[in-house]
């Protein structure tokens, strides 16, 4: 794996909002390089600027200053090469699993037959074969998030953003889903930027873990995690890494 080919380069990125109480700084001067095919985890306490940062990369929000470069050129607005798995289960309740999954190619105007085939392969990959005609309301939380992942992959992104995708799941399902994401990532290599506030999840999944501070979000430290996959969550090395990050984390209420 060529670890050092830079795909995404974020420089001096800041975001602030004007509120009634004055200026609110959500993200402050982030400089970050994302390498090809790496699993990058953004870890930080509470609900601070990580989501905002991700939204800016996805083009859902405009940065106040700074820029984002993809393969060397500045991107503005939402870019097709960047896909997203949303924090809340952002499936459209009026679409079936299949219709939700094929949404990306459909919006691009890909022919029905072709996009169905592609969507089907990813539905199979996430293990939802047989549920194509179900509506999201008929699925469990874990299954819904599988659809979210299949939907993102079907759009063929080069960089995949995941915004606390498993935050709403119970611990058991969460662990299963973490393993699933790892399996899918190893099978279909993409660059993944994964946001979480769970240290264990970060250590389990990340090639590199970027630790953020409390509001405004600033980068504190980058940990390189080269433990062999699949990782043993009770091995000495794992626990050591986990303790190291945990000691360095700001407490959030």
């Amino acid at each position, binding site marked *: 794996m060529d670890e050092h080919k830079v795909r995404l380069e974020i420089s001096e990125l800041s975001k602030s909002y004007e509120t009634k109480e004055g200026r609110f700084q959500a993200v402050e001067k982030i400089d970050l390089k994302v390498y090809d095919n790496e699993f990058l985890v953004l870890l930080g306490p509470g609900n601070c600027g990580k989501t905002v940062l991700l939204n800016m990369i996805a083009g*859902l929000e405009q940065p106040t200053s700074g820029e984002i470069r993809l393969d060397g050129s500045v991107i503005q*607005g939402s870019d097709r090469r960047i896909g997203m798995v949303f924090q809340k289960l952002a499936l459209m309740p009026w679409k079936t699993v299949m219709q939700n999954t094929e949404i990306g190619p459909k919006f691009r105007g890909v022919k029905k037959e072709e996009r169905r085939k592609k969507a089907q392969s990813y539905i199979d990959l996430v293990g939802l074969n047989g549920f194509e005609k179900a509506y999201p309301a008929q699925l469990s939380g874990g299954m819904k998030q599988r659809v979210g992942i299949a939907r993102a992959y079907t759009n063929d992104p080069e960089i995949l953003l995941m915004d606390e995708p498993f935050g709403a799941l119970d611990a058991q399902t969460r662990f299963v889903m973490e393993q699933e994401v790892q399996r899918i990532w190893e099978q279909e290599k993409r660059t993944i930027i994964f946001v979480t506030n769970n240290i264990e999840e970060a250590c389990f999944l990340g090639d590199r873990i970027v630790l953020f501070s409390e509001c405004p979000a600033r980068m504190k430290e980058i940990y390189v995690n080269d433990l062999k996959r699949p990782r043993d969550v009770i091995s000495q090395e794992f626990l050591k890494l986990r303790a190291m990050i945990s000691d360095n984390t700001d407490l959030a209420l």
Partner: protein
Amino acid sequence: MERKIRNKDPLGRGLGCHPYVYTMLSIAGILTFLFVWQLLLVTGVVSDRYISKPTELFLLLIRKFSDKSPDGSTLPIATLASLKVAVTGLVLAIVTGVPLGLIMGWYKGADRFFSPIFEVLRPIPPISWIPLTIVWLGIGLRAKAFIIFFAAFIPCVINSYAGIKMTQKVLINVAKTCGASNFTIFYKVGIPSAMPMTFAGIRVALGNAWSTLVAAEMLAANAGLGYMILMGRSFARPDIIMLGMVCIGALGALFTGILGIFEKRITGWRR
């Protein structure tokens, strides 16, 4: 919401302008409407036998404060007559309908007993009660108030019923573990959490009452705004009809506004 607007309106939603732009557009909308209306009449595209000018309506409004022709009462008296009927019917409906709905929603026995009667009577529009009511009660205040009552009663019951049914189970359980009796829970937990829905019902009731009032006054009355409109038609006076319509509309909007203020006071905890 506002933070997402930065991106200069990519969806064609017309968002992100300074607030005063929208205010100006609103005013422009109304002025254009009145202007086109006036213009159609002044240029003679539409004959004033069918419709009267906004300016004329305004003058008529002032004149009608003291002029009794053609319907036999001045505007304030007609308004008062309508208001008396509407308020009587509406207040009766709220006072009986809301408690009934709440009780039906909370106590299963009451639900089983009243629901069938209710389901039978509900689909019959209040207007169709008018003939029977005239035979029973004549065309006085009582008759009209009864019809208004009927129109307003049903949304009051339905909404307070639905509202109390939606009381969160958790809240009830909290009260239960604190040892509250069923009635205390009904009173302290059920009723407050049913309030937003109840108010929505009262708002519907108000609209129903007001629009049924017009029908009641057209079919059985000798005073009131609805009667004034009907007389306007008999004398082929579109100006009287339109003045009546404007007054009814304006009063209806006014009441809805007042109710909104009340609602905010009472359900203020909801934000």
